């Protein structure tokens, strides 16, 4: 039961999100996106293995802007989710979980690594 007397502040406009919270919520969002993006990745696997013709067709799929956007979006979500997930695995090993400050540092490290990988990925999709 919900105790109506308890003071609750869930007004996102007044809550200040530290970097750790941003990394965490993006991990959730990217996880949900990746789940649906997997349909695109499985379709690519299907087409790339069905026949030599469909392999050639799917190799050139990035020439279509819509396909470019969908594949880019899928890979961005997957990349971010993987990097933020590896941060959790590293913290499970006892590294970077001593204090709020070490958590903040590892969150920034994850953001920087994700940004670098996403930049490389963006270059590959565009070029």
């Amino acid at each position: 039961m919900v105790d109506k007397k308890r003071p609750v502040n869930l007004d996102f406009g007044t809550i200040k999100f530290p970097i750790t919270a941003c990394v965490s919520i993006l991990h959730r969002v990217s996880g949900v996106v990746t789940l649906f993006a997997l349909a695109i990745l499985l379709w690519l696997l299907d087409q790339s293995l069905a026949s030599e013709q469909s392999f050639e067709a799917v190799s050139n799929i990035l020439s279509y802007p819509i396909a470019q956007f969908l594949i880019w979006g899928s890979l961005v979500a997957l990349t971010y989710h993987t990097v933020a997930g590896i941060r959790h695995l590293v913290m499970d090993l006892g590294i970077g979980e001593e204090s709020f400050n070490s958590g903040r540092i590892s969150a920034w490290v994850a953001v920087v690594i994700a940004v670098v990988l996403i930049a490389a990925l963006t270059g590959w999709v565009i070029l």
Partner: protein
Amino acid sequence: MMAFFARFTLTGPSNWIIQRITAIVMAAYLFFIVGFLVTNPALTYDQWSALNGLLSMRIFTLVTIAAVAFHAWIGMRCVLTDYITVRWIGPKANGVRNVLQLGLGFIILFYLVWTIKILWGL
């Protein structure tokens, strides 16, 4: 309805360890595929279908998708129980959450069957 879903809900510690084991499997697969694509920039259909024709590779892919199934089930349950709550969306929250979780079950089952169809051409 709640009792039905509770049967598929493991305890916290087992969820925690399953989430990590499946994460390692999926990360290993991702690194392998990215490594293969980066070291074979001019990939041909013959190379690609030869790789995916190997029984070991088919099993690796299938195990990864099975890992996705468990990982998504547990992860989505965390997300749904946090946001589809009575406080946020009203008294229908439990029903709505269970319907969404059931929908998720169909999606991951579809992914598993599709993967088997892709790899074994059924």
